[in-house]
């Protein structure tokens, strides 16, 4: 026998470790053959062969629709259905009517985001306790069936006001997306509880209209080319972008000779690049500086009296609304005629820590250099009394007559917008009740007890608390909302919110609280049109670059399936796919808004459309040029430095009729400072867009999560650069590495916002997620977030 098998024999002698085969040779085939159930490798589709040659790299122009304010041209280099590389707008700079829309550092990471191994890939249902993070893979059919039946069950049991689509901004600046889809579905099946306002400029959005009648107090960026003096008050476009080409215009303004001042508790990247001077200020004290600037301006008679007389209500005793004492005027307040405290620079210095003479200097420069633009960022108004800050900036713009003039700027919220497209996917919610978005946790806990005093509108009372939450591509469910520990307890109680649906592309802290977790798509995997926040004369085509990966699906399609199960699919889609929506938007934009808008094919091919204008848009120009025929949209038709409406609310301490400095709880004058001596702020970090991309390793290399602390404060605590520290207050505690740097004002600690909440077993956050320390106490008027108002202590961990 052996001679018949020379090869086998040779092997038997040579091979040392034959056990494997002797052993596996003895296994019965049926046992293991069953293993490879369905074959995954199938006979190759012959047609596909022709396309798949070696060098067929295609460049596809698309657009990210996250919430960074910018919108950029993202070029996907696609080969054989795979994105092999990402580049960005290659158009030259120079022509400011068509500025290049180049990606920032976050954009360099987009391919990594797309093919990151941690992508959510399949629908899941929760199997452990809520928030524990235990899930089981399920089919799409089961997922949509469960959602449909819970939408119905909870709607039937508690009424439509029990259903809520939470504020979310992961993927929001397009034509469709999670929230739009959910809202459409809920609207067609009885409705849902609305929210108003946002977490970005929440206080400002409500306050600015009391002065100007609108939030559109900004001017187009090209107007800055005419400015001689620019104050960026708490604005940091170098990191949070604001609008992709904004920095180009700022740079050009600087080249044109504008002097640029940055007022900020931190020496920001914006200050480094643009500022002639950095004015460090203590958080929450902006109005003290503003008041003192006003004081200097009027005591040195630098105000634009003609402007004030003609356009403004409430500057002095001669221009007060009926029935209000003269001594309530802005001028009286600044001079201290009413409260006995003149708002002198020396008074302000004690509060905001800026030397009195510096305040004088800035006030004089701002009042004398014309035109001057005081542009307000929104960080300062995410404060206990954020409303005052936005009205305070507007007040200075009026004192100096910089409103409605080319190169000036009206301050306040500062939206501007003149380039629009049609949004064809809309909904009509039969429920009219609405809450301020920041108070959603309150509406979960005690919605039925909320009243107008809590900002409830559209109804006297709610019939139910929130029982069902859709959280679509957002992290506000836990990470980005204030007071994580409080929110966590609320969500963990499964009897309060009975059902939570989350859709996202990664396992965020919010996703952990899902009952049903849906894998969403990235912008590479869907059609869309990217629109910059409110600012910018451009839109970017979002081409679907590749088919959705894994079992990921666009929310529009997911909720079409849910709608089908609830019998309203036709009404939901009106027969349209996402691509149809994009086409319809373009066609209707051409028909209804702008005949010069390109056709769908042109737009698709160019990838971007720049709207062209003859000149800059100047906020309130019509009113200022022709006041007789164009009044402000306020009750008096004038700019209301003094608002009678606010006065009549009769809460003068916290909601004054003119902008005032109000010492803030957990501000520098709060006695709590004895226990928690540092003011903690947060900022939009260049490596993240809010909390989006926190799990991206590359970006962490670009800018690590760390807390800024001034050397004076660090020394006092024996803390050295790079040390790991514990930051804590009554609400929570976190660990983070410290960067000891003079780039932050003494007395202030700064943690970049958006790090993903990562608690250890004791609930102490390990990642530096700032919202374990922030408060849910809303601002008095807008009921907006005060998330930059916190006192903390820091010690070595």
């Amino acid at each position, binding site marked *: 026998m052996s001679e018949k098998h020379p090869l086998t024999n040779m092997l038997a002698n040579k091979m040392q470790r034959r056990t494997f085969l002797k052993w596996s040779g003895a296994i019965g085939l049926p046992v*293991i053959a069953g*293993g490879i159930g369905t074959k995954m490798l199938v006979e190759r589709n012959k047609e596909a062969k022709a396309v798949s040659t070696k060098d067929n790299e295609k460049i596809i122009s698309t657009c990210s629709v996250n919430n960074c304010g910018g919108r950029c041209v993202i070029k996907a280099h696609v080969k054989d259905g795979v994105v092999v590389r990402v580049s960005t707008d290659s158009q030259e700079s120079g022509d400011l009517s068509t500025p290049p829309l180049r990606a920032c550092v976050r954009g360099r990471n987009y391919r990594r985001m797309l*093919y990151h191994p941690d992508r959510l890939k399949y629908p899941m249902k929760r199997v452990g306790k809520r928030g524990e993070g235990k899930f089981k893979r399920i089919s799409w059919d089961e997922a949509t069936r469960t959602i449909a039946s819970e939408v119905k069950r909870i709607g039937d049991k508690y009424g439509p006001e029990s259903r809520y689509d939470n504020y979310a901004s992961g993927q929001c600046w397009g034509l469709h997306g999670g929230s739009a889809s959910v809202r459409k579905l809920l609207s067609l099946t009885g409705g849902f509880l609305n929210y108003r306002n946002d977490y970005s400029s929440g206080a400002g959005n409500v306050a600015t209209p009391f002065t100007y009648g609108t939030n559109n107090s900004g001017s187009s960026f090209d107007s800055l080319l005419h400015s001689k003096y620019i104050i960026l008050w708490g604005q940091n476009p170098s990191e949070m972008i604001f609008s992709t080409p904004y920095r180009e215009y700022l740079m050009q303004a600087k080249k044109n000779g504008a002097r640029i001042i940055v007022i900020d508790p931190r020496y920001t990247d914006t200050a480094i690049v643009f500022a002639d001077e950095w004015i460090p200020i203590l958080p929450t004290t902006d109005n003290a500086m503003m008041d003192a600037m006003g004081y200097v301006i009027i005591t040195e008679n630098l105000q634009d009296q003609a402007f004030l007389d003609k356009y403004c209500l409430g500057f002095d005793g001669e221009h007060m609304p009926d029935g209000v004492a003269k001594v309530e005027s802005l001028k009286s307040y600044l001079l201290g005629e009413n409260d006995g405290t003149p708002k002198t620079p020396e008074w302000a210095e004690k509060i905001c820590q800026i030397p009195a003479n510096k305040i004088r200097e800035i006030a004089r420069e701002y009042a004398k250099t014309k035109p001057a633009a005081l542009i307000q960022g929104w960080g300062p108004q995410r404060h206990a009394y954020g409303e005052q800050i936005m009205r305070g900036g507007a007040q200075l713009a009026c004192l100096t007559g910089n409103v409605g003039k080319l190169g000036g700027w009206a301050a306040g919220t500062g939206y501007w917008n003149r380039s629009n497209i049609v949004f064809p996917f809309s909904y009509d919610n039969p429920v009219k009740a609405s809450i301020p978005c920041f108070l959603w946790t309150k509406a979960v806990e005690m919605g039925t007890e909320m009243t107008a005093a809590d900002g409830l509108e559209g109804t006297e009372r709610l019939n139910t608390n929130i029982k069902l939450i859709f959280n679509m591509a957002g992290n506000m469910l836990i990470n980005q909302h204030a007071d994580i520990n409080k929110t966590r307890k609320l969500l963990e109680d499964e009897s309060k919110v009975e059902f939570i649906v989350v859709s996202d592309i990664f396992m965020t802290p919010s996703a952990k609280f899902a009952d049903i*977790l849906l894998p969403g798509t990235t912008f590479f995997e869907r059609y869309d049109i990217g629109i910059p926040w409110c600012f910018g004369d451009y839109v970017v085509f979002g081409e679907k670059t590749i088919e959705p990966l894994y079992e990921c699906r666009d929310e529009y399609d997911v909720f079409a399936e849910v709608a089908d199960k609830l019998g309203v699919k036709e009404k939901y889609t009106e027969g349209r796919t996402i691509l149809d929506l994009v086409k319809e938007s373009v066609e209707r934009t051409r028909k209804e808004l702008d005949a010069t808008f390109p056709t769908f094919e042109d737009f698709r091919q160019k990838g971007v459309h720049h709207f062209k204008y003859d000149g800059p848009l100047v906020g309130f120009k019509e009113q200022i040029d022709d006041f007789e025929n164009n009044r402000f949209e306020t009750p008096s038709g004038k700019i209301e430095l003094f608002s009678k409406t606010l006065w009549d609310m009769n809460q003068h301490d916290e909601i004054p009729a003119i902008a005032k400095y109000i010492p803030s709880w957990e501000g520098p004058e709060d006695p709590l400072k004895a226990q928690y001596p540092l003011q903690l702020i947060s900022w939009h970090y260049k490596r993240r867009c809010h909390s989006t991309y926190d799990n991206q390793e590359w970006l962490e290399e670009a800018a690590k999560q760390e807390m800024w602390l001034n050397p004076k404060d660090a020394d006092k605590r024996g803390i050295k650069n790079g040390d790991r520290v514990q930051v804590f207050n009554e609400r929570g505690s976190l660990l983070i590495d410290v960067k000891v740097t003079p780039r932050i004002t003494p007395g202030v600690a700064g943690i970049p916002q958006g790090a993903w909440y990562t608690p250890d077993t004791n609930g102490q956050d390990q990642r530096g997620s700032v919202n374990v320390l922030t408060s849910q106490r809303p601002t008095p008027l807008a009921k907006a977030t005060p998330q930059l108002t916190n006192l903390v202590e820091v010690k070595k961990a």
Partner: protein
Amino acid sequence: MTVTIEPLHIQLQPYLLARKKFYQLLHLLFSMPANVDALFEIKKEVTFKELLGQLHEGGKILDDFFQHLNLEQIKREQQEFQRLFIGPGPLGAPPWESYYRSREQLLFEEWTYQIRERYHRFGLQYCKENNEPDDHLLLELEFMVYLSDLCLFATKDHRLDKLLATQISFLEEHLLIWIPYFCEKVIENTSSQLYLGAAMLLEDFLSFDLESLVEVREGLLLCLKNIH
């Protein structure tokens, strides 16, 4: 008496069949432990203990595992499977070649293409091509099963030689480069006997398989030379 020498491919049948089964078994061990019957059948039919003699730690662990197999245990393994290989969230041991070979630990990197090429050359493609990466562990194992199956039916010596060469290079250029890192990750991140044992067995077997394939091929070439 004249000795009729059996054709080489016939002589190799037991060897080829045994490796095919081994790959099938590995594939089964790394598949979602959903088929409860199959697992119990393994418990009944397969005695991992016999691997013990040769210091195969993996065999010992698996033996232990299967001896104590019960429904509760299978449920736990299903959760563990999901945690290690499916998600949601960061995976205990991402089961894709690209992840271990790309500098950036991404999926759909050039190795995914290389693997795809290999499938295409054999007229195969992943049924979810471009939707999920082609270089998933289970696909690469399925490919090895496929190739070893082809060997079983290869009656021409040079065809057999080519198939052996293909598998050698697939092992050398792919599986054996990333599987050690993958197994390391599994071993680091799990206390499941099933996956610990399977990972050890996988790594051991692959290096053994390469060694034996090389030797078989050398032997084959030698015999061919003697014959002709």
